[in-house]
């Protein structure tokens, strides 16, 4: 245990080459090694989705992925999607539809939605429900969240 290995990973377009402990999760690597704390941890057992990131084009729970498994991967985190000053249409839609309250689930939820819309720009209501089924929100409601995602999908399609 506790061996160190270098992890070379492309995060949001920038390459990081940083040592990680072999049993360190990608969530902890992002948060505590790189200080990218936008990715949240609500359970660390794969049950809440707060830690969702996109790895090689797929939404994953970063608490279930080891940092060393991300060696060589492309990772997108919430920081790579938009900033408070330059919001991505998904982020704007979450605000407009009242889909954010305490906000703790929002980064994971938005990353999961981004992954869906990347794959299926025309995602229907049922696809949206499914895509966020692993992302828990305790404050807002999934109806508002799903509406926000559908609205963002429309904006994104119109922009293409």
């Amino acid at each position: 245990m506790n061996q160190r290995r270098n992890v070379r990973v492309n995060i949001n377009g920038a390459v990081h080459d940083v040592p990680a402990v072999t049993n360190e999760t990608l969530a902890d690597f992002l948060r505590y090694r790189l200080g990218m704390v936008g990715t949240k941890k609500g359970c660390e057992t794969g049950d809440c989705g707060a830690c969702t990131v996109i790895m090689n084009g797929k939404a994953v729970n970063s608490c279930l992925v080891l940092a060393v498994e991300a060696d060589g991967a492309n990772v997108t985190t919430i920081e790579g999607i938009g900033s408070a000053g330059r919001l991505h249409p998904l982020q704007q839609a979450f605000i407009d539809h009242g889909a954010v309250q305490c906000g703790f689930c929002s980064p994971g939820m938005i990353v999961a939605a981004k992954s869906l819309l990347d794959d299926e720009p025309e995602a229907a209501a049922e696809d949206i429900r499914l895509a966020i089924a692993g992302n828990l929100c305790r404050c807002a409601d999934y109806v508002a969240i799903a509406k926000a995602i559908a609205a963002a999908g429309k904006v994104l399609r119109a922009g293409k």
Partner: protein
Amino acid sequence: MNHVGKIIGKPILRKDAPGKVAGEARYVDDLALPGMIYGKVLRSPHPHARVRSIDASRALKHPGVLAVLTAQDIPGANSIGAIIKDQPILCGDVVRFAGDAVAVVAAETERAAEEAMAQVVVNYEVLPAVMDPLKAMEPGAPSVHPAGNIGTHFKARRGDVQAALRDAAVVLERRFFTQRIEHAYMEPEGAVAAVDPQGGITIWSSTQYPHRDREEVSRMLGLPQSRVRVHQMTTGGGFGGKLTPHAQCCAALIAWKTGRPAKVKYQRDESIIASHKRHPYVMDLKLGATKEGKLLAIEATLVGDTGAYLYEGRAVITKSVTHVTGPYYIPSVKADGYAVFTHTVPCGAMRGYGIPQIAFALESLMDELATRVGLDPIEVRMRNALDTTLPTATGQVLHASVPFKEMLQRTKRAADSFKPLLAKAPKGKRRGIGVGCSTRSIGSIRKSSRSTAIVTLSPDGSVTIACGHVDLGQGSDIMMAQVAAEVLGVDVDRIQLLTNDTAVAPDCESTSASRVTYLSGNAVRLAAEKVRRQVLELAGRDLGCDPEDLRLVDGVVAYRERGITLADLFNRHVYHEITAVADFMPETEPLDPETGQGSAAGTYSFSTHAALVDVDEGTGQVQVLRYAAVCDVGRLINPITVEGQVRGGVMMGIGYALTEEVKVNGGVSNPSFATYLVPTSFDVPEEISVEIVEDPEPTGPFGAKGFAEGTLDPVGAAVANAVSAAIGVRVVRLPMTSERVHALLHEPSS
């Protein structure tokens, strides 16, 4: 008021949202201080045991370990609790539930702290435990606390219940059960603490009440409160669960003892095992009515399991007893509520605070009454509805803002709109409609409350509001900004809230009990009005006119065509800024301890809900298909935040109704989101319709009052009534899991 309606009632977007959706908002675990160390809490595996000894010698040798702290290391008071401080921060002598804390291990890394924790040897003498509240009330049961297992007994008495029941044409009687549930805020508890060079301490906290954190830490360390400063970080949900700052005290103790900044955060399983829950109730209700469905009397015994500690149990039970008649007038009342100790995880505040339980029981009986007297469920409620002439269970007549009858009519329309769908149930499903109603006092009911706000107007027309009611994501900051903006004639973007720092914001009690809009909204309004008055008086002097004829808009005081800027006005009178402080305290009178009678609250809010559900005959699974919530907000301040609150509350209520139950087998046996099931995107109805009724509360800010908990209060009742209607068997126990409903369908006597 010149500007009423310009800003109040408008869907203004909240300011915290962009940072949250961008992942830039900072929660406590996002914070790292130089030299910061980590603490892990060692907890008892036994529900009841004497702590004979704690041997930390091996743990202390573990690399990176700095300290293992126990009860003996606490310099001040070793007790904590929201209202009644009866939980040891670290148990020195006896543990009273599996999860009670005995030590905290501090180390350079989280991992080292965890590894070392496994090496602390606690020698326990296991003692007999009592896990069931009814057994705990029996003579000879093991005692949880020396004074016995009945933590509180609260009564309501009015009229002659026995005689009324004897004469009643219809008497209904049943026992109902509700379960223990978890808040399940997505962000687990946590805090960072650091000693400052002047010998004080600063805490960064995930909290609903920074001033309570300050109080508890100061008691524990024996420090004056003025030397403890608490910053609320962006908080990932609370719902009543972040009112007892245990993690905060542990972090503070480590920082105090080691001199290093320290972080303590709970893991999810730890959060579910150790944090307080919603009280499970056993409720015996007896309802008497005429054959026309007019209620005559209620007799109720409510037993709430408060677990190992009481901290809010007394207030929760009081809330249930004082609301035992729900939104109805019942002439004769006899209710007894008990908060009973057991050796289980403590129960305390949770959104709803004693109302969801009693609403489930009472509303179930209201439906039975409707069936017995041959009336529509809405009609029987209408016949007994409170209005501005009839008293609540505590004898208080609400003279205004009681729109319950209108709400019932709207809910009838919603339920009627579901009716055509009844016949369309797919094969293998049974479909039903249910309604649920409730009311609640706004703010605490056992004691008076006060909110204080400090409003400061700067010469550039910008405004700060210091008020210690923190926003947990429900949108109270934007509500307060709208109130001040309305009074001071400025744009909400010119207003900055200072709520989350005990050094600048006055103590306004906790963000709970649906009190923020009513109490702090009023304090902000009053302080802003004082500022406005002062400005207009100064300007009136300068302009030689009556202040009444002046308007304050966008940093300019205007008089006909003339105007004077605030900058000029302030300059002339040598003001750098104008500040005013105001308090708001609703008028209440204490409840009589023998009869529970009194005017307990400044105002009440009502809820009427309707649900359409499908029950799967094969599996017993319940799906809520449609949901309609009618809400009473007095006056709407911000439709976006209100609707968000309503939908979120309904969703939480659906979890309470259908899937959520903290199971106790020694300790909590389902401490994960894989085993404790909160609603997911598949569990919510396709549509939750929200109707807002505006019937202004004269004592509220612009007529507004609180409503947050009312969004959840009647959901369990509405869904249970819908399920009962669908399957033709009365549900008496929450949650209505597939197994339970399946059993009711196939062996109805079970």
